[in-house]
């Protein structure tokens, strides 16, 4: 959903220069340069543990950079306040919580980046929420609890939540993981709609499946560095040993080896996104 009245020459939605991320003191991402131009449909790919999810978390400010410089829409991350321009779709585990919530309520949370404190929903808010639910094709489930939806429907709910904020840049972390094929196709249909509206999309994917025809640029991560940046690749090519597939000389990491597993109660968490911030 791009704005029709964008301020003059559009700054790239994302510009990362020499980005590095360390988790618990261990360097995970090193020297990553990435510029995403307006209208790009970019797939971040790579094996498990290659750093693609960490990169996405760095791009959204969830993980601080230990070195390098990140600009969103031409503004350095430290000064960036226009978060309604960024629509983030985290991994699906975030759809449910300890208390029931309806699909509509979850999607309505996506409107918060545009709402002022203590104001009721405006008519424009309601329209955006309904439209977002409509785009992902779940209007008939609006009042249902999210916990009662299938995995694919929950994923579509999270995309609707990002859509409701009417952002210019969509960042999706593994939107198709554990989603059945028809729901993957529904997701791809939604993403196609976004692409046609001129949105910029960055998505992390292990495999592209039905989204493959939409992707016009692929970035392949390998062991925390960028191994490829260019035209879209097939799923098969990504797992080529050149890009750090399992045929490489490195033994594939089991689980998330860059996280220490033992800690005492008051140690800072290696998962803590605030850590390392001044």
């Amino acid at each position, binding site marked *: 959903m791009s704005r029709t009245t964008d301020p003059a020459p559009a700054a790239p939605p994302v510009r990362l220069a020499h980005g590095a991320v360390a988790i618990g003191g261990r360097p995970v991402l090193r020297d990553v340069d990435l510029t995403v131009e307006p209208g790009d449909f970019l797939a971040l790919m790579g094996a498990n543990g290659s750093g693609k999810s960490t990169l996405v978390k760095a791009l959204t400010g969830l993980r601080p950079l230990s070195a390098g410089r990140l600009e969103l829409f031409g503004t350095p991350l430290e000064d960036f306040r226009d978060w309604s321009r960024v629509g983030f779709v985290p991994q699906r585990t975030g759809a449910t919580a300890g208390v029931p919530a309806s699909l509509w309520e979850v999607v309505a*949370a996506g409107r918060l*980046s545009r709402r002022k404190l203590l104001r009721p929903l405006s008519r424009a808010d309601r329209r955006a929420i309904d439209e977002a639910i409509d785009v992902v094709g779940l209007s008939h489930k609006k009042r249902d609890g999210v916990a009662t939806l299938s995995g694919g429907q929950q994923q579509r709910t999270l995309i609707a939540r990002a859509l409701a904020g009417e952002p210019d840049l969509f960042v999706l972390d593994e939107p198709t993981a554990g989603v059945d094929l028809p729901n993957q196709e529904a997701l791809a249909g939604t993403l196609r709609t976004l692409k046609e509206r001129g949105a910029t999309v960055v998505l992390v994917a292990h495999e592209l499946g039905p989204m493959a025809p939409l992707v016009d640029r692929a970035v392949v991560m390998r062991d925390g560095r960028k191994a490829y940046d260019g035209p879209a690749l097939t799923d098969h090519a990504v797992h080529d040993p050149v890009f750090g597939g399992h045929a490489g000389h490195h033994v594939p990491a089991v689980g998330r080896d860059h996280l220490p597993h033992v800690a005492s109660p008051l140690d800072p968490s290696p998962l803590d*996104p605030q850590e390392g911030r001044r």
Partner: protein
Amino acid sequence: MSSLDLLAQPFMQRALIAAVVTGLAAPVVGTYLVQRRLSLMGDGLGHVAVTGVAIGLLTGTSPTWAAVVVALLGAVLIEIIRERGNTSGDLALALLFYGGLAGGVLLTGIGGQSAARLQEYLFGSITTIGVGDLVATMALAALVVVVGIGLSPQLFAVAQDQEFARVAGLRVRAYNVLVAALAAVSVSVAMRTVGLLLVSALMIIPVATSQQVSSTFRTTLYGAMGLGVVASLCGLVVAALAPADVPVAAGPAIVMVALACFLVTWPLGAWMRRVRRLRMPFPAEGPDEHLPVEEHHDALPHDHEHGKDCGHVAVEHGDHVDYLHDGHRHAVHHDSGVTHYDEH
């Protein structure tokens, strides 16, 4: 004294007011705590507040306000530990809780106060509440309700999905501390009603009850507030009307009524969840995963047609509906004008 006379007594009226405002406020925070899967946080803050009460008794200041201050400090500390810590954060919280309880009992002893005095705060003593404490309780409860409902869109989003909330530009840490602070205030509010050791019950049980039968956050929240008021009032009245030779304490009575509500609703919730699970759509297979034709099975001939009123559960399956029939999944298939059922 007849029961009506009893209810007309000033101390009883103060108790009734305290019960209503406590029952209204405690579940508001409880809802956000349950949503963040921190059901026991109220319990922990209750333990920490014991030290506050003891400090109040020791220094001769108001135990209520001392409890508010200490519980607030505890809440901020818990939030810091939670944010900086990891999975073993619960261990650090446990240390804090026991420290709070032990410190409180120790200080009370040093101050020369009797155990009975502390017990008023540990298990509640709603009928001895004075006018000053009542006003404080009402003000704090009003604060909790206004903030908890006024900021509900933000608090909901943060409790539902922290990562998303952060990328939406919400100040997640500030809201987390706010919820913890509201919990601390609620603890102090409920202290005189149900007591510090049972505070968490009034925050959590109404939410647990309410969510048995609701599928939206909004109805869960308001339902929990309603149930909190009902439980507080019923518990207090039961305690007041109990025969003179059976001493019934109001605090535990309130908690038992709340639990009774949960026990009544739980089977209903379990049944509704079972029905929902039955109706959960079957994963649809992709077009290239269709079974080869020879593997299609016809269902046995039917004496009725599946439909809205056939009594069999209808479950979505891709673009059609399967009917659950004696452990089989029957899908309608129209073949040259003849209707039969395929096994799916």
